[in-house]
């Protein structure tokens, strides 16, 4: 029973990082109808911000988190204004591929500036060590992505549903032209949505550095699972992305624990396939 409880806990924790990636992708897709292939690379940049803040300033990732989220928010604005907004005027294929090209630029630029080797945090962090509750062991550093995922999901929900800007973004996602007719600036909505998705990845990157190594291609490792979580949760549904991420984490850990580690990703994919078989548009898809 102890092993099962530990497995459930670890599964939820592992899923929270996938949830964070997926929520960013879902936000961009839901609002702009663009599949953001660069979300994983924003995560990678967040990890490097955390790494260098720790290495040179001795900052804990949780302290570097606002810095990283802020930096990625600004980068998101710049990228949207210079690249994405122009691609949106082009053919559908360009819109689809532009973030893929962007991800390549970010990966190889990171390799050039940060080096290709694997890195881990070098200075001590606040959240380290474990809490032994008897029936489960809680690693303090892994609580950070979980709490962050809960916070981000909650804040995004509140922002999208309770603020004027959030409602404007939702209106733009429903019908860009109709939103423009009632005085909403669609371009502004898109900018904010893209920048927020980047910021979420930046914060997630910081949380991930507590226990995961970093290197320029690290984003690709998580991004694929982020896409699956988005598809499972329903394209464009932030809540769906959050819950799917957690379910995938559980499927991953429990399959590895009770079936075979070699096929744990098959377990995740089976859950996905079963879900889309019954709900082709995902759990919350419309």
């Amino acid at each position, binding site marked *: 029973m102890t092993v099962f409880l530990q497995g459930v806990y670890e599964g939820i924790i592992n899923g929270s990082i996938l949830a964070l990636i997926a929520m960013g992708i879902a936000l961009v897709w839901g609002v702009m109808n663009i599949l953001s292939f660069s979300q994983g690379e924003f995560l990678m940049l967040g990890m490097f911000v955390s790494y260098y803040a720790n290495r040179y300033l001795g900052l804990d990732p949780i302290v570097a988190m606002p810095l990283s989220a802020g930096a990625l928010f600004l980068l998101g604005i710049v990228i949207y204004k210079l690249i994405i907004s122009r691609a949106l005027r082009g053919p559908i294929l360009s819109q689809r591929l532009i973030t893929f090209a962007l991800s390549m630029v970010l990966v*190889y630029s990171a390799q*050039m500036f940060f080096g290709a080797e694997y890195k881990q945090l070098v200075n001590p962090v606040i959240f380290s060590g474990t809490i032994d509750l008897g029936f489960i062991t809680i690693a303090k550093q892994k609580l950070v992505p979980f709490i962050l995922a809960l916070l981000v999901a909650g804040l995004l929900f509140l922002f999208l549903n309770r603020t004027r800007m959030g409602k404007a973004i939702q209106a733009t996602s429903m019908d860009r032209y109709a939103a423009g007719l009632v005085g909403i600036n669609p371009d502004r909505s898109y900018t904010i949505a893209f920048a927020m998705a980047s910021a979420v990845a930046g914060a997630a990157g910081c949380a991930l550095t507590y226990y995961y190594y970093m290197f320029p291609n690290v984003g690709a490792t998580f991004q694929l699972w982020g896409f699956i979580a988005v598809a499972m949760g329903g394209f464009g549904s932030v809540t769906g992305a959050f819950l799917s991420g957690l379910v995938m984490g559980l499927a991953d850990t429990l399959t590895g624990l009770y079936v075979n580690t070699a096929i744990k990703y098959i377990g995740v994919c089976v859950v996905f396939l079963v879900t889309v078989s019954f709900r082709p548009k995902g759990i919350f898809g419309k």
Partner: protein
Amino acid sequence: MSMKKLICLLLTAAMMFSLVACGGNTTTNNTAGNGNTNNSGTTDEGGDAATGDTIRIGVLTPLTGASAQLGNQVAEIYQMVTDIINEEHPELTMAMAANAGIQSMGGAKLELVIADHKSDATTAVSEARRLISEENVVAICGEFTSAIAKAVAVVTEQYQVPLVASCSAVSLTDGTNNFQWFFRYAITDETYIKDTFDFLNYLNENYDAGIETVALFSEDSEFGANIVPLEEKYAEEYGYEIVETINYSSSATNLTSEVMRIKEADPDVLLMSSFVSDALLFFNTCKEQQYTPNFIIGQRGGFIQSDYLTAMGDENNYICTTASWGSDITTAVTQELVELWANSEYNSEKVALMDSHVKDVMNLLFIAMAIEQAGTTENTALREALLNLEYDMDTLMIPWSGIEFNEYGQNTKANGFITQYYDGAYRTVYPEAGASMEPVYPMPEFAY
């Protein structure tokens, strides 16, 4: 120019630079004479392999991608050794150092044509084909995983060009593929795994270790997949019980269930076949789970790479790995290379000499020796020379029992070591004759 245009320009430049980085990356290095690398960044038009006074050797190594750090280090040490071969160094013990260039070919200089395989088999195949058909290299060496070497060997067989590699998969030289142009002087996984179980017996017999059970923890690509059957074979032969076998993806987002299963099984010894990233994630996950394996023996891979050692620091203390070379080998030629590399201008990261560097650089040395002994770069003559190499073991950096090839291109006289990390370096602990410290068993607990 407005700020907006300036940013556009910079982003475009960054994109172009990245695309260049994505594309074929060839560097021609003729380091003869001046001791400085001439990085032309382009390649000459094709021509004879040994036109005028240069002989071209292809170097395939990962300059970008996941293993870029090791790949670049290998390219750097190759350049250092090429310099040594091309110039007169009578003060050095190393083979081919005394005279300038290839004496049997009128002092011809070696010229490296370095290509980036990006740790990707498809890229490696196309780059190997280009090196042979366009760059006219006479032989290929470099830094390979077994999967990449297998892919490249198909090309070198087609063109009948020698490929000399030190990756360890048994299947490369067991006759399965019947490669005629593949040569491996270094040892295979079979020897490494046998050494591992011999070492367990040694610990039981000499240190009352009481080892009865082992667990296998292996990534699921060519590297790990080739090792598991050997570990199973020798565990049975030596009478050790396998209490858990974990196969996992080296690009896993987590290794939680894997570590939980190992913790449940609690083996006396954990045998790990891991790369850098997954090894780091494994140890982080172990600490989260408050679990320290009783004893760990890695199968090289990530355990001997500098970024792994840098990231682990002192936490790597008492972890063992199999090895084909150790910096504590006391022969003059070994210590000479350690010092040369430590002070070399090519050693851009100032990393210490490691097993992977030495194994790879030996291959370049063997190619140079074979050309010297063949007196030509003609492929069949070169093949014969590689198979029947005349050598003085005192001039080679790895003190093997000898060099003697079987029919499949495998040196049957090579031997390995077991090393244990302590105080910043791996130290030989087995076999006893070459040991520089006594093995510490079991490992102390990690700091949780």
